């Protein structure tokens, strides 16, 4: 039986300690990204057996694993060696999870360090009474069977101890960008999605809103099956914001344009917006979402309102789909637990604006990724009869606007 840590009671007034552990090369990458990009209330710890990657990392704490075993050269994708390294550094591992209320474990599975150490950390953190959420990626198919097998084993190990696993398949992530885009861009987009999901989960847990989603709800959604993790988020401003934000969220490649929502048994919807957010908008969004989900699926709704009147409306969808009823060994969540309610904001930005009302957590405004259309800034210029048609944009220029106007040839 899990008992949730005290901090989940809002009464104590103590701020929860959220810690993000980046394990292995991929994990350290994610940790770095989060440390740089978001001023989230997150402590970042980089753990790796490769000294070089640690040196380059900007995480606030760094822990070298198995310096004697690997001589700081990394485990080289060998799980045996990584396991040996983890054993050697057991006390460091314990230290790294100590005192955290929520532990995020970020790792790319299929290699050495990440695959071997993450399950152990999950176990240690769980023993400490922390809430453990693992955010992991599994290798591309083209990386071979061996790697995916290693990843599979590691997943099982993690599942035994973690409260929830947010699982991204690299293969699916690659679909995020158009197939013809540069490799670098694709990797960056993958990283970005990982970042967004961690950032949103963080805010979701640390910043409650007026109509909050309880942690058990969140965990229930994250855990409800072994299949794919669904995640989508969109934000919009202006008159048609409800529709636009939702459209964007549904367009997320991780939702397969909303199609995958049909298969999800539980879906968490979080809306955050300025004070001007009307009930009609909330109702419209929920109605639209329920059209996209199966009639039998359970919807959890969370709403938070930002103090800032210029905040955009943000819609976040989290769900889990798939039939592989991988009922994890992790103990079921006691339904009775009066867990502190937290609005689930999956989106980086979303969380930010939405969160201001909550307690002490002055969520600093993060430079969140803007998902705006690129033609917006050009709007004021005349497009004449092409006003309502899809704009012709080449290299960032709206070619529907007369050339002579753009070049200021006019006398």
């Amino acid at each position, binding site marked *: 039986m899990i008992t949730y840590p005290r901090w989940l009671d809002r009464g104590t007034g103590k701020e929860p300690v959220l810690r993000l552990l980046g394990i292995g090369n991929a994990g350290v990458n994610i940790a770095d990204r989060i440390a740089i990009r978001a001023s989230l209330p997150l402590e970042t710890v980089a753990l790796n057996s490769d000294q070089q990657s640690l040196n380059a990392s900007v995480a606030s704490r760094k822990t070298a694993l198995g310096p004697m075993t690997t001589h700081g050269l990394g485990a080289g994708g060998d799980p045996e060696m990584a396991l040996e390294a983890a054993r050697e550094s057991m006390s460091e591992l314990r230290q790294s999870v100590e005192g955290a209320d929520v532990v995020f474990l970020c790792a790319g599975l299929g290699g050495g360090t990440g695959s071997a150490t993450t399950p152990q950390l999950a176990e240690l953190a769980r023993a400490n009474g922390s809430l453990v959420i693992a955010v992991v990626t599994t290798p591309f198919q083209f990386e071979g069977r061996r790697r995916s097998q290693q990843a599979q084993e590691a997943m099982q190990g993690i599942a035994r101890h973690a409260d929830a696993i947010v699982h991204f398949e690299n293969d699916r992530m690659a679909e995020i960008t158009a197939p013809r885009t540069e490799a670098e861009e694709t990797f960056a987009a993958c990283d970005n999605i990982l970042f967004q999901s961690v950032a949103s989960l963080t805010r979701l847990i640390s910043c409650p809103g007026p109509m909050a989603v309880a942690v058990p709800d969140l965990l229930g959604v994250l855990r409800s099956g072994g299949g794919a993790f669904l995640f989508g988020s969109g934000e919009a401003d202006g008159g048609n914001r409800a529709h636009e934000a939702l459209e964007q969220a549904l367009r997320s490649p991780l939702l397969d344009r909303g199609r995958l929502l049909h298969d999800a048994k539980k879906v968490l919807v979080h809306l955050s917006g300025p004070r001007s957010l009307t009930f009609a908008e909330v109702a419209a969004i929920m109605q639209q979402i329920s059209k996209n989900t199966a009639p039998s699926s359970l919807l959890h709704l969370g709403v938070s309102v930002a103090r800032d009147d210029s905040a955009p409306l943000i819609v976040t969808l989290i769900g889990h789909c798939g039939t592989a009823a991988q009922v994890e060994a992790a103990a079921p969540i006691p339904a009775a637990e009066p867990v502190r309610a937290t609005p689930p904001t999956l989106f980086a930005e979303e969380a930010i604006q939405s969160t201001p009302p909550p307690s002490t957590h002055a969520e600093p405004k993060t430079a969140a990724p803007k998902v705006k259309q690129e033609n917006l800034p050009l709007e004021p210029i005349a497009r004449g009869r092409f006003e309502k048609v899809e704009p012709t944009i080449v290299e960032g220029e709206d*070619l529907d606007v*007369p050339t002579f106007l753009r070049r200021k040839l006019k*006398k």
Partner: protein
Amino acid sequence: MAREKIHVGLEIGTTKVCAVVAECHRDGEMRILGVGESPSRGVRKGEIVDFKNATQCVHDALADAEDRSDHEIKGVWLAISGSHIKSFNNRSSVTLPEESTITAKEIESVEFKAKEAGIPKEDVIIHSVIQRYYVDGQEGVIDPHGMMGTKLDADFHIIHGVTNRIQNAIRCVREFDIDVEDIVVNSVASAQVVLDEQQKQAGAVLIDIGGGVTDYIVYKDGAVCHSGVIAIGGDHITNDLCIGLRIPIARAEKLKIEEGSAITENISASDRITLKNDTGFSGRDIDRLMLNMIIKSRLEELFGILRKRIQEIVPEHLLGAGILLTGGCSLLRGIREAAESVFPGTPVYLAHAQSVSGPMSAFENPQLSTCIGAAKYAQAVHAEMPDESILDRVKGFFRGRF
């Protein structure tokens, strides 16, 4: 199969819908029997935005073509355009068992592999054009059929577009129980009739500037090496004039056709054009220099974009046959000079459909290049392989999906 087959090419353009009925002889000759036209409504930038109106226009054009050619149209070859159409080059290879001969099976599988290249989910491949084969690394193989080898590589030029948008155009025709036998991309269609084999070998760029879009295709060593669509066309010039000179769209269009030119040299500042007053429009004097300047800057920009794209693939000095302009907008005065100023040193020609017979007014009209090309493409496809059609693949794609 009848000795003389009749093919119908149909283009749903931004300014007009036209259908060409052509009689195709087995020896490759083609004779135009009739051309049907209808001003287009409900089409913007080469794509349908108002289904009902567009359908009506297609109907009018087909009915007109039937009248003029005295032929009942049962199926058409549809030319497709729009900015969603993209292309790329892809190489694929297959390995053969020990020293065996290359058969149709291997050639098919190498093409299949090339098409596996990632295109966005919502897209479908419209054309996969063979550029060249390599057998065991030997370059320049034109037909590997029957050759010995252990490895067959092939370069393909793949053109793809958004399935739903293509489907919309097809549905427009199907409304009247007329079959769409196959689809062809505008630029590929135009190239069938405007370019001859020599020009393709020497290297040529065909630029088809229509009302809403500009389609272009680049040939080098006899094979397509680049193609694309830019959603800029004659409509943009009209719109520029409408905004720049503050005159109604209809007047702008008329002014463009009657007086417009892309040449700004030797125009005195006092040269003015008087627009007569019309219902709802009081007469005005227009500065000719201004008029031509607006047109010129638009065209120069368009050619500038094209040049940039083309140069990435083929250096200009390899374009032996130069640049050929066709499409309705190529009738604009001074367009050749505008193109020449952007592509210095490369010859620029105004072109229309070649190697077809029939009424001169039909094939000499550059507005009809694409449409005639679609019929010619039909002839070419039938000559090669009468069975397989791209549309079957589109259909198959849909079946697999729903």
